């Protein structure tokens, strides 16, 4: 898609010239198109000015898309603990605020969820913070994730090294790649490495690939049963019940039924993600800090875009005045200006997105930087940019309507 943008942008000028040629050979073409031709030539004709204009718009779009994507990426990270497990329904304490705040449930919760109509399966999940002690003596805080051993539901989709099933072997654990990174890299931690969790042995049998999480605390996978051995004795260790709705039954209905029948909190994966995401926005500095940066980027970007285009028309005011003196109506001139605005706006949009994407691709490769360029963001930027083009074009149009074409005589 991005390639297409580039392509269209690059061929636009030539394409337009060749269409122009066709116009000139078919004399039946009427004026509407021909004045458009004058408008586009005015736009493209002064290459230097056009490139300046394009640079301004491209920069604005790039700035916004880049900042927005990083923000969105960060927000994706905040949901990583949920999306990494990728199950449709999360059941937990009704008062829960976000995924990392675990409120343990009674063990009976799993059966209670299973008994709800429309539930296909329900399994327990342990999730808790623990300290790992490496052979070097170093301590690291980790998130222990205990999956039900019979199904291993919630296991990562991709395994980088080893076999995930080996987690069923005695003392076996699986790390995610961030754990390897945080705990000292592959020379310190790899398949076969042995470390301690609460003075009990843990042996790495595989490395899995996960989405980086916001807190960047390493994830250690084990089975639910074994998790009970690792954690200090607590009355309740069931953190979540993961469930799936039966095919053909709407997931929202099942969630609602679980709530009413068990009195527990139940959420779809999306809702729980959103809840967590909102919690991060409101309760951490990220919402304010990053939000203001992005808002500023947005305002600055849009101001640049509007300003550049406005200057462009102001510089052309005399030319428009000459056209007006030669009998071009205000309507015709407005159309010309709008055509120019949207042409350069869309071109800048395409190139800007291209650059932002390349940036994102280069920096976020490997998942180390948050960068999520979503279509919603692209659409938002498009709408905003078109609005800015429209506004600055309108300002120019009003100025032009007030313009006394007599300036051309001076």
């Amino acid at each position, binding site marked *: 898609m991005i390639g297409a943008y580039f392509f269209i942008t690059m061929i636009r000028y030539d394409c337009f010239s060749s269409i122009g040629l066709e116009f000139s050979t078919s004399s039946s073409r009427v004026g509407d198109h*021909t*004045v458009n031709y004058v408008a586009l*030539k005015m736009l493209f004709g002064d290459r230097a000015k056009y490139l300046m204009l394009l640079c301004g718009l491209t920069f604005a779009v790039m700035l916004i898309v880049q900042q927005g994507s990083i923000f969105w990426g960060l927000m994706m990270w905040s949901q990583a603990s949920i999306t990494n497990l990728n199950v449709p329904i999360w059941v937990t304490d009704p008062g829960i605020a976000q995924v990392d705040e675990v409120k343990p449930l009674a063990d009976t919760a799993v059966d209670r969820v299973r008994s709800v109509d429309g539930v296909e399966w329900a399994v327990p999940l342990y999730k808790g913070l623990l300290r790992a002690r490496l052979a070097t003596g170093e301590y690291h805080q980790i998130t222990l994730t205990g999956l039900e051993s019979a199904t291993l539901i919630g296991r990562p989709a991709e395994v980088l090294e080893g076999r995930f099933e080996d987690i069923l072997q005695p003392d076996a654990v699986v790390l995610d790649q961030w754990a390897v990174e945080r705990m000292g890299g592959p020379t310190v931690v790899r398949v076969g490495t042995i470390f301690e969790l609460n003075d009990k042995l843990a042996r790495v049998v595989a490395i899995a690939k996960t989405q980086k999480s916001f807190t960047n605390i390493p994830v250690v996978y084990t089975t639910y049963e074994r998790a009970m051995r690792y954690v200090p004795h607590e009355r309740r260790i069931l953190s979540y019940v993961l469930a799936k709705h039966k095919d053909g039954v709407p997931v929202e209905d099942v969630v609602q039924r679980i709530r009413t029948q068990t009195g527990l909190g139940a959420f779809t994966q999306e809702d729980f993600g959103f809840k967590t995401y909102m919690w991060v926005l409101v309760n951490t500095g990220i919402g304010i800090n990053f939000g203001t940066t992005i808002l500023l980027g947005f305002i600055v970007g849009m101001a640049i875009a509007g300003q550049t285009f406005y200057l462009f028309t102001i510089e052309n005011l005399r*030319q428009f005045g000459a056209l007006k003196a030669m009998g071009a109506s205000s309507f015709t001139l407005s159309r010309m200006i709008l055509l120019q605005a949207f042409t350069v706006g869309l071109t800048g949009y395409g190139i800007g997105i291209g650059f932002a994407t390349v940036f994102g691709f280069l920096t976020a490769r490997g998942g180390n930087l948050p960068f999520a360029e979503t279509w919603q963001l692209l659409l938002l930027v498009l709408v905003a940019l078109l609005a800015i083009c429209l506004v600055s074009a309108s300002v120019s149009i009003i100025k032009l309507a007030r313009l006394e074409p007599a300036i051309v005589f001076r």
Partner: protein
Amino acid sequence: MNDNSQPAAVRARGIVKSFGSGDTQITVLKGIDLDIYLGELLLLVGESGGGKTTLLSAIAGILDINEGNIDVLGVPLSALPANKRTRFRGQTMGFIYQQFNLLPALTAAENVAVPLLIQKVGRAEALRRARVMLNRVGLADRTEFLPKNLSGGQQQRVAIARALVNEPRLLICDEPTAALDGPNGQKIMELLREVGRSPDRCVIVVTHDSRIFHFGDRMANLTDGRIVNIEQISQEGTA
């Protein structure tokens, strides 16, 4: 050849125009009465800053006046709403400006074609007629040049071709020969006089250039905001 029984193409009465307001207000036109007849070339002379360009703008309907009436080809300009006035101007008038006001991004031929394009003439036809007109001003070999690659005089001739291309009935020229050398100036004036001589067209030319005075039929002198004198120019040797 111009007796005043011919119909007036332009009839201006009591034109007053001031700029600014309060203490800085200056009244440039202080009550102008002027008739321009079909079939004539009227010269407008006068001191620099005297208001010649201002008067042309008023006649063209691109500058609002404070007082007075202007009829062009029997149509009272002030009675026309702005958009109709614009269309009327596009259909009936042609302009040659003191500054050329060519569109820098368009070739000579495209520049000349602009008034036709505005009148919704198809592009191929507009360009064809533009080239014919460029040929008439001696620029047949420069039709595809951009203005920046033309000399000042050549640019002025492009501007003249543009003013003539839609065969306007009223041709308004602000110092059309200022940028031209003697021979080229003469050539252009011959062209303009030819336009002025057509029975249903007329030309008004502002000029300082005494070498072209003999192309005019009448000469009006604008001094201190008033037409102080209109004289018939003897046409020996040209008629």
